[in-house]
């Protein structure tokens, strides 16, 4: 069994329990863990804030040619979603890929890759 990735796996655990969070600096910039300093402003005063319940799709693409680890998942939609001050990349499920649009409101969860069973960030329409 491989070691957990500190920060990242803890964050996925929290998202899976509907208790997702992000790290916010003193100036309101949002990041995902692990972080010790805000790359935008240098603030080291990072505190966990609850992830907003829903976010907006900022951009998206349907991936037809996947890497081997996602072969059986393809085609799938990759999106970057703005959750307030933090943005997250994941797979959009539960909607026809052709119907996905920028500005769509989605929630976040943790799912499994069809190809490998590994955990993956999933966005579902709200």
């Amino acid at each position, binding site marked *: 069994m491989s070691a957990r990735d500190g920060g990242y796996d803890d964050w996925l655990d929290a998202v899976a329990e509907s208790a997702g969070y992000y790290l916010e600096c003193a100036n309101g910039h949002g990041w995902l863990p692990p972080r010790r300093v805000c790359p935008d402003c240098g603030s080291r005063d990072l505190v966990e804030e609850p992830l907003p319940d829903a976010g907006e799709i900022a951009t998206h693409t349907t991936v037809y*040619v996947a890497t*081997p680890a996602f072969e059986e998942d393809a085609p799938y939609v990759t999106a970057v979603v703005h959750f307030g001050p933090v943005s997250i990349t994941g*797979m959009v499920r539960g909607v026809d890929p052709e119907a996905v649009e920028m500005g769509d409101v989605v929630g976040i969860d943790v799912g499994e890759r069809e190809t490998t069973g590994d955990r*993956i960030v999933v966005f579902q329409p709200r």
Partner: protein
Amino acid sequence: MLDPRVAGAGVTDFGEHPERTGRDLFAEAGLAALDDAGVPADDVDALYFGNFMGELAEHQGHQGPLMAEAVGVDAPATRFEAACASAGAGVRQAVKNLRTGEADVILVGGAERMTNIGTAAATDALAIAADDLYEVRAGMTFPGAYGLMARSYFAEYGGNREDLAYVAVKNHEHALVNEHAQLRKEITVEDALDAPMVADPLGLYDACPITDGAAAAVLVSDEYADEHGLTAPVSITGTGQGGDNLALQDRPHFDQTPAADAATEEAYADAGVGPADVDVAEVHDCFTIAEVLAVESLGLFKRGEGITAAREGVTTRHGEMPVNLSGGLKAKGHPVGATGVAQIATLTWLLDGSHPRADDVSDADVAVAHNAGGTAASATVHVLEVEQ
């Protein structure tokens, strides 16, 4: 401070050479560059070598000394890794060291062996230029990242797949006479639009191929060139490098490349030129949308106007601002760690008149090379000028 000169350059044929080892590819390019320069290997003070995925493709780390040995150079050798901008980063370090007088002759170059592991594994290897935890594990591929950027660009500035198809058509046409190019075939806008989707809105013809190949250049101090009577009319007069957050999601905009903006500003100031002075450019078109973002970062087109540059003919070889006369990464091919130096080689040959497309830019004095890593979390820009 006198600027370093490009004394010679060499490239292998770019293409599918799965059986050729990285060391053999680089030996061919490096020896060609030394021969072209007329500089003995004994005079080389250092090798700066670009390579991105050698561990994955060849199970080979520590490539600096391996590659020095391959070209018969007994000198300190260091590998540079900045994803697709690896060789550009090496060129930049060479320019700096030649300017200070710490070195007189630096061999810069790069090599990448990619097709031996197959398309699927190569796609996987390229993806690791992104953030593993938050992008790769989320399913983001390299074309996927540029698909995200293209959609953002279209939404912000307009443009469509057909505009991008013109970039591919142009670069394929440019490559027709490039004997080292991987894809020497003319394509039409319809071909590009009809090709299978890779990561929408990007299709197969929006993407550069997977390429084996190497490139090298001998950079020398101005003093060395004079002392040895070298014919080296092209100088690197400006260097710049910019950086950005690695993950696309951690940037305020997905439709521009601030690292390339910063590299451009620094390189132009260093050379004392502006975008209006640039006569020809080689830019990092790993995807068609990347060429659009590049020419805007270089200030050759305003934001939102790069998208129609190829369609309107401005960036074709007959246009006012020819871009990627080599065929670009799109048609010339993209051996990742070699690309930054292949661009320097192309521009040197265009400026000194020895490139097959040189007649299209016979009055060119100032050229610019734009090399970007990943989704441009790393970018280098170099200005080259020819003495009249």
